[in-house]
């Protein structure tokens, strides 16, 4: 098992944001985390990468407890996050943003190789590598955010709403890339408001509600579940 959360609790000040959240992500799988705004999805990934803290040490990555490890060391263990709203370094060049993703790595040779791999996934980033990140379109920025996360050569990739504000055509491209990454062996935990697409891409899904896991199951089963359709996916 790659990632396991057991009864994770997290607070903002006195407000409880997560209550006994348990979830697991097996190696090589895509798991999606769904739920309304304010349900605690972003808090969950922030807690996994150590930006928020669970009140107990109950998060394991490849069997190893990481609940007390600082964020920069969690990255070195092989967990990378694509944050909500991308959080690029807007005045740095595309290539520098990518290299920042490899900040925790030593080997320049490997870095070159990964750079080529990312340019292969997103050819447009190679074209625009000398541009500042802020000059990119929304879709290109999202590709850059994913590319930057991949530069740390993670084994687990956490994506927080990677299709936010993107045109339909680009959304399709991003989902296709995620599928391709997964086929190359990447384990993915995906937060997505576009629930139908996320369910189609992932094998297993969790639905958060008010900081608790309200439902979980195989994505195909959840898609077919009329309650889920009504409460979370809307009528389409």
């Amino acid at each position, binding site marked *: 098992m790659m990632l396991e959360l057991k009864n994770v609790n997290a607070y903002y000040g006195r407000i409880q944001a997560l209550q006994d959240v348990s979830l697991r992500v097996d190696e090589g799988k895509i798991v999606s985390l769904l739920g309304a705004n304010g349900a605690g999805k972003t808090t969950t990934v922030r807690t996994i990468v150590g930006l928020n803290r669970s009140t107990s040490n109950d998060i394991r990555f490849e069997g190893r407890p990481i609940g007390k490890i600082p964020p920069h060391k969690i990255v070195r263990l092989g967990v990378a996050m694509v944050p909500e709203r991308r959080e690029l370094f807007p005045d740095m060049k595309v290539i520098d943003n990518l290299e920042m993703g490899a900040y925790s790595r030593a080997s320049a040779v490997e870095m070159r190789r990964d750079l080529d791999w990312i340019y292969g996934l997103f050819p447009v980033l190679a074209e625009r590598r000398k541009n500042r990140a802020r000059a990119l*379109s929304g879709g*290109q920025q999202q590709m850059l955010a994913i590319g930057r996360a991949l530069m740390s050569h993670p084994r687990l990739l956490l994506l927080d709403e990677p299709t936010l*504000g993107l*045109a*339909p055509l680009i959304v399709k491209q991003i989902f296709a890339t995620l599928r391709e990454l997964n086929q190359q062996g990447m384990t993915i935990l995906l937060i997505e408001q576009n*629930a139908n697409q996320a369910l189609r891409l992932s094998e297993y899904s969790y639905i958060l509600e008010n900081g608790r896991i309200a439902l979980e199951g195989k994505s195909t089963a959840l898609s077919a579940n009329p309650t889920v359709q009504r*409460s979370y996916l809307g009528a389409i």
Partner: protein
Amino acid sequence: MKFPPRRQVTFAVIALALGLCAAAPLFLSNYPLFVLSLAIVNCIAVLGVNLVMGHAGQISLGQAGFAAIGGYATALLVVNLEVSYWLAVPVGALLAAGSGYILGFPTLRLGPLYVSMVTFGFGLIVVIIVQNWYELANGPNGMVVPPPVFFGRELFPREFHIAIVAIAAVLFLLARNIVDSKHGRAFVAIRESELAARGMGVNLAHYKTTAFALGSFYAGISGGLFAGLAQFINPDAFVFPVSILYVTMAILGGINTLAGAAIGSAMLTVLPELLRGAAEYKDFLTGFLLLLLLIFLPNGIVGLLRKHLVRVPPTKSGSSAGGRVATCNVLPTTLQRRGRSENATLLRVENLSVSFGGLKALQNVNLAMRSDEILSVIGPNGAGKTTLFNLISGLNRPDSGRIWLDGTDITGRTAHSRARLGIARTFQNLDLFGEMTVLDNVRVGAHTRLKSSFLQAALRTSAERAEEARYCDTARDLLQFVGLGPYADQKANRLAFGHQRLLEVARALASAPKLLLLDEPAAGLNSSELDFLMDLIRRIREDFGISVLLIGHTMRLVMMLSNRVIVLDHGVQLAEGLPAEIQKNSRVIEAYLGTDDA
């Protein structure tokens, strides 16, 4: 009259502090009393720092320079022209305020680092002038100021202390009144996001210069009182380290709370005196203690007290998907515009073009929008949709082309005057006032609707209070309307992303616009939340009579709501038509929608 407990506690603490200060001459000997008077005089200058830096977010390193203007003006008026001290102090303060106002202008074009340098330079110049201009005030030797005279009698320091306490109390009250008004919120809005503040109709030039004038006024009073207290002034009292000391006092106390000014100035005036015994280590110990305090109290002492004493009632984050009900059925009467638009065409854009450094962001874009219409703009990322919004709302200027709103040519108007004319917008990348409460964000949205003047706010007239209360209710109603009622008292940056978008809608509605520009309102919403939003937008048009211009990538939203759709690609209008036509348009499918429905 029944107050909630927290207010009672605050009142009790203030009454106690004020009582102790006023009664101090009864139990303090001369020197400790002088130190207390000095702390209060410092507190007045720190209040100014608090307003300029803590609230309006403009870094000011020249506060002592403004105090010097107040102090020297007072001294010179009293000594040379035999003006009454009680008249000289306000005159000096007004002079200081005038210089602050003028100094505010260059800061309009400068970033925060440069503003701090400008104010720093100003403080230096003032000191250099008084040091070297012997004829004015004896240069570095300073000048003696006679004791203040009250009804023909020279006041003893003990009596003057009471006057200082009274003046400080009044200035404190005025500052509180201003902070808790549309003007105070405008200051904070500028600090949090100049862009969004402009979009809400806040006149940046006016508020920045006013903030500097206000801060300098407080410094000027402080300088004048210092002259009366010490009965002597020389340039040493106003050198650069004094400016830094004021800033440190403000930060130590808690820079965005007025109480912080009192606590910080009291501590840093009294602390060095307490360490007087360890003479050679005094500065070292003061610095060391300060360092520790600042490291461990990032939000100042008031921040620490808040954290431990004030209980935040847990917000029921229970507004689960689909469970929210819009309870506010009609536009609150406060937000109804006088006449309905008589023009059939609400917004007309003609041949609009703009380039950014060689990139043609928009080329010859035309659109005409009827009143009560929902018009959508779609297109790939980078097509120029947000640029179009920026041009319409006045944040950018077109290279060519014209824009009319309701028959008025607004091409040359500023963003804040367009907001007044009835254009409100949301921001694609979210531009909330993060450190303000959700409620106050909406109240800033109503900035242009509130008519009370600065003076009315400072004096807290009953009309001003009534207006504030009315619009506070309006803001709560609007939060209910967008389903954020339970979050009203949280900080805006604590909200989930999709909720922040809804807050932007409520904030934009608070200005009672004729035209609402929504930039990707659905991003970050799940399907059931999207249903809620669609219902909301329909009602904004039908119940509130506000036309909506919408940028959206969510096809369900665009196709079900819009009367017409305009497609942009690479800054050029690719297509325009009914939603059904657009969906079938092969060029649109190729550039934007994609063919495969996977």
